[in-house]
């Protein structure tokens, strides 16, 4: 045997042994490690005010919220630092009683000073969460009458404070350590963050993963059964599925079209039903509604021209539901007691659509620009836009598809450069406070230029919600807002999209919950 042949033989033997070793190691690690494979982690930042809701998946395990929630999005005194909260008779003073004995990962106790610091920091100018504006508008001051008590004083009476600072919305309510941040500074904190959640930060390689390690005997989860939790950035779906098959991830984000294949292989697939709504809208004119969309008949015609059932089946493989309400976030409906009746569903009726256009003097149609772009979690974006444009073509509207990226569309939308053009988003579903925050941006004229509704009646109702102190009245206002959005056809709701997450065969029962951008991994990790 020649020396080169011997070398090749040894190399192959080493490779085989290494392969065997790697397989064994992977299966051994799966027992104490939880690995989550996602297509992206947005900005991958570790500091709540600059992270926002897109990155709650891992941040909600690192930090505790002032106000906790259940997996189905109800505020909960057992899930957050506040064990109870109450408001004053004038609804301008919110008192939160803090859980005792909670410490940050560096051993410092969590006190009212930390909560005050965190909330002021969240509302500061450095924040890019998009929800700090309301806090700045509403909050007058924050008092700390005792180490385990804070009082948030608002400028106007309001009910929204607890929900706004809860896990159900964004990251404003996450509590960070005042002393540590004042010592090391914001930048150092963003690199080596410290929270008080059931998992502490271990390491981050941007573009690769964020690794967390369990905290022993945490009040939220006990001593978690997963010693480490790693969120892996795996942009390519084929690779995520390969990692799932190899046992290297336990939860993998998958597209709707791969669900049946994975189920056939025996991988459980959890659906977060109605995780987002694919909703389209018109770009407004600087002064309001442009022609011809100003005519309600045109807006109705464009809605009834769309075969939502066909779109659900053809584009989304049946893993979606037709949506009846523009910007209608269904996870909020139960909070406000809203039950869209069957009469609110748009029935596909191209003949009626043509008649409505003819009644509006547009029997020959009109030109329409339709922006087409992909979005995170919405790979069908362009195809869906093309499909909807096709329905409009059938009723005589001359559509022109404009492939762009989302920022380019957004610029046209907020600058109102192309009035009447169509854009869309897969808006993440959320509870009533999140739904209100969205409507306050996208259906409220004073919020120019994001407004897409330009309706004085809706403007009035939205302004009342923030200052309303009777929850029943808030619910009534919200129901009326949605009813009017629908009756005036102030947008084109297409479908609620179910998102799919395949899990390993050994993961066990997991309820991903219905909290925006949050898998609610507490229950999965909990030992109690």
């Amino acid at each position: 045997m020649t020396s080169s042949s011997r070398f090749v033989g040894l190399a192959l033997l080493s490779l085989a042994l290494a392969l065997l070793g790697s397989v064994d190691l992977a299966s051994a690690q799966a027992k104490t490690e939880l690995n989550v494979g996602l297509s992206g982690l947005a900005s991958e930042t570790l500091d709540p005010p600059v992270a926002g809701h897109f990155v709650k998946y891992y941040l909600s395990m690192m930090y505790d919220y002032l106000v906790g929630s259940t997996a189905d999005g109800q505020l909960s005194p057992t899930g957050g630092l506040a064990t109870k909260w109450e408001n004053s008779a004038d609804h301008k003073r919110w008192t939160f009683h803090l859980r005792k004995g909670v410490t940050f990962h560096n051993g410092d106790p969590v006190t009212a000073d930390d909560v005050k610091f965190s909330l002021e920091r969240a509302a500061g100018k450095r924040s890019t969460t998009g929800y700090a504006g309301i806090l700045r508008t509403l909050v007058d001051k924050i008092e700390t009458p005792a180490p385990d008590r804070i009082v948030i004083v608002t400028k106007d009476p309001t009910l929204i404070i607890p929900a706004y600072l809860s896990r159900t919305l964004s990251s404003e309510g996450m509590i960070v350590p005042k002393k540590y941040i004042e010592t090391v500074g914001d930048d150092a904190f963003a690199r080596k963050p410290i929270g008080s959640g059931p998992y502490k930060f271990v390491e981050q390689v941007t573009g690769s993963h964020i690794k967390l390690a369990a905290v022993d005997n945490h009040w939220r989860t006990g001593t978690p059964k997963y010693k480490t939790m790693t969120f892996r950035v795996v942009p390519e779906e084929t690779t995520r599925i390969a990692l799932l098959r190899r046992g290297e991830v336990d939860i993998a984000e998958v597209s709707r079209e791969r669900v049946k294949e994975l189920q056939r292989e025996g991988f459980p697939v959890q659906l977060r039903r109605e995780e987002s709504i694919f909703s389209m809208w018109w770009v407004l004119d600087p002064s309001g509604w442009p022609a011809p969309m100003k005519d309600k008949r045109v807006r109705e015609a464009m809605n009834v021209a769309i075969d939502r059932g066909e779109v659900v089946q053809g584009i989304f493989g049946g893993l979606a539901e037709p949506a009846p309400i523009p910007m209608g976030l269904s996870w909020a409906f139960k909070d406000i007691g809203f039950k869209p009746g069957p009469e609110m569903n748009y029935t596909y009726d191209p003949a009626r659509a043509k008649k409505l256009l003819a009644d509006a003097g547009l029997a020959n149609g009109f030109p329409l620009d339709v922006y087409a772009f992909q979005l995170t979690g919405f790979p069908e974006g362009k195809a869906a836009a093309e499909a909807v444009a096709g329905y409009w073509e059938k009723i005589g509207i001359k559509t022109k598809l404009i492939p762009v990226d989302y920022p380019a569309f957004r610029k046209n939308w907020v600058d109102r450069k192309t009035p009447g053009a169509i854009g869309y988003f897969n808006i993440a579903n959320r509870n009533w406070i999140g739904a209100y925050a969205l409507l306050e941006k996208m259906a409220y004229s004073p919020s120019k230029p994001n407004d897409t509704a330009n309706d004085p009646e809706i403007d009035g109702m939205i302004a009342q919600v923030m200052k309303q102190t009777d929850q029943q009245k808030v619910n009534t206002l919200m129901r009326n807002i949605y009813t009017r959005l629908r009756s005036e056809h102030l947008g084109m709701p297409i479908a609620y999209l179910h998102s799919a997450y395949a899990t390993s065969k050994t993961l066990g029962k997991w309820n991903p919950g219905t909290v925006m951008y949050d898998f609610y991994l507490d229950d999965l990790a909990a030992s109690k």
Partner: protein
Amino acid sequence: MVRFVATRLLQSLIALLMLSVVVFILARATGDPLSMVLPMSATEEDYANARAYLGLDRPYLEQYFSFVGRAVVGDFGTSIRARKPVSELIGERLPNSLKLATFAMTVSVLMAFPLGIMAAVKKGTAVDRMAQIVSILGQSLPTFWLAIVLVEFVAGRWQWLPAGGNTGFLSYVLPGFTLGWFVVAGMMRLLRSGMLEVLDSEYVKLARVKGVVEGRVIWLHALKNAMIPVVTFAGIYFSILVTTAIVVETVFAWPGLGRLAYEGISGRDFPVIQAVVMVTAAIVAVVNLGVDCLYAAIDPRIRYAR
């Protein structure tokens, strides 16, 4: 030689300066980066605050000189998206790309050299024909297709090798092979044609007539003279593999410089785009200089004028 190196370095610096202006302008021409960072419901006040905090509301000239002034000391600013120093992001990702590119180039050399040399020595035989098939496949198979097929079958279904991420030596194999496959084809063809030309030359015939062992004739006398174009090719492709392996890094979830560039471009993260372009240009300049110096080592006839 020293003067040659100094001149080349000066030329590279001038090129980098000109490039900094171009990339600064082009990056900003793509649009507002904040729409990628802020949620869709962010207000104009949120945008104004973020713009002010990130320094994007300053005049363009001020932004440019601030960027250049800090870049000379290795500070490329803060990533708009990640809110981390860009130099830190590059420090995390560049070594991963260097290691992967080195692995890929090693695989390419180990495959291309024997194949190319044997194809030339045994021209017209089955070995030569096999080498040509490898060459055609290497140059025609799209990288993204090869990557996906390897992930789906080798990693996912047969589970022979890791699917993604930088998780150890074995995780280099699939992305390294995918990257190196194209290079094998080109390197092998260049080597084959170079060797064919050299093996036919008078001095090689003389060496054989003088009784020099065939192995020495091929590996010592002939190969050295056929190496120049191969070294050029390898140098060019090494810098390409380090800096622009976007597809491979995306498919294999490899946290490298190519993916950082893609994330910067798709997120309109100006500081990242600027930094990656400058670092890429610097790598290309250094590698090209290294290749030029290597010529002198390989071929003593090459000397750079004083």
